[in-house]
């Protein structure tokens, strides 16, 4: 009898300790990266590191602008492709599709989101890169195909299942009665979706898009494999780009051999972390606001 109680109490303490650990886990990650990126910030001011395009590690110049620009361009372009496609799919699945279609399609979306990113990368080099190269050829310019557009296309396929998933949940949370009221007033199906359902679900959909954006921001391997990796600010769709995560992944090997190089790269990781966390917090705030408004 006693032993049971002792065991129960011990388990409770243990569980509690692990729970506290889980609550603060992000702090050592943030702290560790901040400490290690300190040295580079001591030699150059923050704005110089972020907005100078002079990247020559051997000369001690660490301007991250080309990489930041690469990340932003690839991500925004990918979202431009992914957002309409995923929203239309989500609307179809929640408003139009029969239960049978849903049962066929939803597992596919799940599977798509479970495919490892290196597989997306292999697929990109096999299919997207030659296609984009051919497309550039049609337009009368030459491109190897390893460029901004290829990265964005691969990335957009990767974030689609993710946005669909969140958007569908948001649409499903819109009460049935709202739709029925609109239909009973003589509105058509699409009119109801456009004027009533989407308006009601708007904050949630914004959150879905922001969450997808933050996913796309940090995606590394698949983009790295198709995007070309040349550290200049890209000027056209067919120019190579060099996103921040790719910079990290490509240079981990030599970063200990050049002074301050490791510090600059870990600062890049810190910048990535801060941006992604900020996106997530913003999405959460929007969702929370929407929920309190609905209640």
């Amino acid at each position, binding site marked *: 009898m006693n032993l049971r109680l002792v065991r129960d109490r011990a388990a409770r303490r243990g569980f509690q300790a692990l729970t506290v650990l889980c609550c603060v886990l992000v702090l050592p990650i943030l702290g560790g990266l901040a400490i290690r990126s300190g040295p580079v910030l001591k030699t150059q001011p923050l704005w110089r590191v972020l907005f100078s395009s002079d990247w020559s590690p051997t000369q001690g110049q660490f301007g991250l602008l080309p990489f930041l620009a690469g990340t932003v361009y690839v991500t925004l372009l990918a979202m431009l492709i992914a957002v309409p496609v995923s929203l239309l799919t989500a609307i179809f699945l929640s408003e139009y599709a029969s239960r049978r279609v849903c049962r066929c399609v939803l597992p596919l979306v799940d599977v798509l989101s479970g495919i490892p990113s*290196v597989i997306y990368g292999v697929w990109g080099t096999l299919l997207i890169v030659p296609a984009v190269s051919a497309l550039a050829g049609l337009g009368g310019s030459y491109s190897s195909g390893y460029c901004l557009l290829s990265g964005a296309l691969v990335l957009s396929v990767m974030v689609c299942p993710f946005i669909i998933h969140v958007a569908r949940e948001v649409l499903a949370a819109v009460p049935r009665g709202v739709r029925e009221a609109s239909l009973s007033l003589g509105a058509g199906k699409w009119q109801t979706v456009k004027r009533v359902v989407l308006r009601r679900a708007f904050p949630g959909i914004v959150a879905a898009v922001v969450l997808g954006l933050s996913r796309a921001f940090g995606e590394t391997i698949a983009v790295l494999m198709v995007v070309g990796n040349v550290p200049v600010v890209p000027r056209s769709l067919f120019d190579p780009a060099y996103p921040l995560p790719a910079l990290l992944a490509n240079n981990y090997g030599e970063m200990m051999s050049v002074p301050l190089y490791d510090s600059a790269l870990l600062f890049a990781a810190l910048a990535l972390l801060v941006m992604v966390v900020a996106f997530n917090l913003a999405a959460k705030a929007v969702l929370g606001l929407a929920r309190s408004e609905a209640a």
Partner: protein
Amino acid sequence: MKSGRMDLRGLEETVMRGLMWLALCLVAGSLLLIVAVIAIRGLPSLSLAMLTQTPRGGYYLGKEGGILNAIVGSLYLGAAATGVALAIGLPVVLYINLYARSSGLTARMVRFSMDVLWGIPSIVYGAFGFIVMTAVGLRASLGAAIVTVSLFELPIMVRAMDEVLRLVPREIGEASASLGATRLETAWRVIVRQAMPGLITATLVAFGRGIGDTAAVLFTAGFTDRIPTSPGQPAATLPLAIFFQLGTPFPEVQGRAYAAAAVLTFLVLGVSLLARFFAGRFARNTVK
């Protein structure tokens, strides 16, 4: 006039419906296209030798050998990291659903923290693993990769398990408590058993994400042609093997990268099917 407006409305409806079908076909089609391209390019290079041998001398120049080292490395890494994540994650999920109030401050803080961690890209986990590794003087090894990947899997697992446990009716726990069971006994023998298929699904999902991830192990796993025999040794994983082999200029080696990609794809699809199977069983198990 009125009928003209109606026509416009009908037209808009038809156009939007068409666009939705198009979007749906794009999404479903891209999945089929991925699996088809990987299978078509990968399967011809796939042979029994590739699955049963480790790389021999000159393998990366196109000579004999296989990717057994990467397959075994991935399975070791995935299993161990999932084990660690489970050992931390399950108690936490039980704690916030059974011990603390499920909508209380502790539970909210854990959920918030897990949402934040879930959003962190795996390359950042890799960089963090690298910092920890250098700080304690470890070299890139299976052990370091296990720690990094378990961190990466933890939020995926906790979020999925939390959803599962929230669906278990409170009354079951109350009934168990009224029979004199301690909370630990209730948690372990009643709640976990009731939610078992769902918990297995969550574990498998995390396992699938763990073995498929490249960026987190790029810094931490090292890469070797040998099968690791202890956590202190470097290890190869399938995603790394694909990534490195694709980087070589030799067509034979690239062909093997495609074959390795096919192996990884089928492995992950298999895990995902298994997860769906258990999820289906959980749906049958739920008390409404």
